[in-house]
């Protein structure tokens, strides 16, 4: 066995990754999920722990630029990777256009699912700048909102897509 690559269940090796462009590290057990790694970091509790088995989507983050459930990856598997969370969106205390649209369209009620939804929505708009309502709804189907606020979310996302493409022209 290659012992350098082995962690005992009680070991807490240092795990280092890039979160929102900043180097973050923690000593964590093999079983620590990416979700728990993130939430234990100062100022990074925006990623919400919902069902913790991949169903609800509240903990969705971008892992090397692609949406992934942070509850379904172990932190040590993400060592060296780049993670983007909801905290990476607003800069200098200014909400992004997408976040402002969510507020304007009442696209959140309790707000628990919102961090994951924003990540998915931002990724959708980057990949597909002019989505149809059907595409938006399909992307949102990866998320559960217990307040049933989907209509507002769809409107907010379509609104941002329109505004961004108008700006491009």
């Amino acid at each position, binding site marked *: *066995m*290659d012992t350098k*690559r*082995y*962690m*005992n*269940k*009680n070991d807490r090796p240092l795990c280092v990754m890039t979160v929102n462009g900043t180097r973050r590290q923690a000593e964590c*057990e*093999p*079983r620590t*999920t990416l979700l*728990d790694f993130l939430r234990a970091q100062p100022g990074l509790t925006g990623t919400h722990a919902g*069902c*913790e*088995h*991949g169903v609800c*989507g509240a903990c*969705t983050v971008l*892992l090397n630029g*692609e*949406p*992934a*459930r942070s*509850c*379904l*990856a*172990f932190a*040590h*598997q993400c060592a060296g990777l780049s993670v983007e969370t909801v905290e990476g969106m607003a800069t200098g205390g200014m909400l992004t256009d997408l976040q402002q649209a969510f507020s304007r369209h009442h696209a959140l009620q309790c707000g628990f699912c919102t961090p994951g939804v924003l990540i*998915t929505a931002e990724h959708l708009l980057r990949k597909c700048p002019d989505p149809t309502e059907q595409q938006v709804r*399909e*992307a949102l*189907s*990866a998320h559960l909102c217990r307040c049933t606020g989907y209509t507002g979310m769809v409107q907010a996302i379509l609104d941002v897509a329109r505004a961004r493409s108008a700006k491009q022209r």
Partner: protein
Amino acid sequence: MKSAAFDFYRPSTLTDACKFLSDHQGDCRVLAGGQTLIPTLAMRMASPGSLVDLSLIDGLQAIRYANGELIVGAMVRQSGLERALKHQAHQPVLSAVLPWVAHPPIRNRGTVCGSLAHADPSAELALALLTLEGRVLVQSTRGQRFVSAKDLFVGTLQTSLEPDEIIVQAHFPMLDSSAAVGFSEFGYRHGDFAVASVLLVRDPRGVRLGFGGVDDVPLAFDMTDAFHPAAVKERILELARDLDVRSDPNTSSEFRRHLLCSLGDQAIAQAWA
């Protein structure tokens, strides 16, 4: 909802992975994408003493074509295969089923071979491998061997593999350029587990019909005598009537039988479009 503690091994070679799995037989699980294994651990439905992670092993990310087969390595993510197949006409079955495999955030992590190893009876990839008469290459300390899809799936979440064997490749036969495919699925939400699904592959040899979600394993039927859509429809109606169809708290057998017929109609319409 936290996993029990486990030892974690992240080897750089398959040989090391197989050796570790063999040394910890029965108490070690293979981790690839983890999209099923990690929830299983979190819910403590399994608490193995150790996990062996395949993600740092070179060569398992490859997708290639050889001898009329599409060969998919153990660490190929479902979304990676989906992207790779965008311009590949000879693999219409996988292009048809992959968008139905869970939601994109899950497909971004989940692997093709992991889905086969998990052997969920409603899994689209298991249905595709079986209907295409594909096979998997498995490795252990005893060497490598091929297992056909027909012999691989033996029960709900059960394969015929030994506990120390790792699926290192999935081999999906390529189709003739004249082949046509129909696939239709019903789930309560797109991306959820299939309640029932029907896959039709039509080529010069005849028609292969696959059913997902109706039994403990995916089912496939050869219809070398049924070249006409009406004959296929007739056969689907017979099967939907005669098969032992499972029920669960959300969906009765009766409803699943009904679904097989209507999904069958949609699949026929696609395959004869």
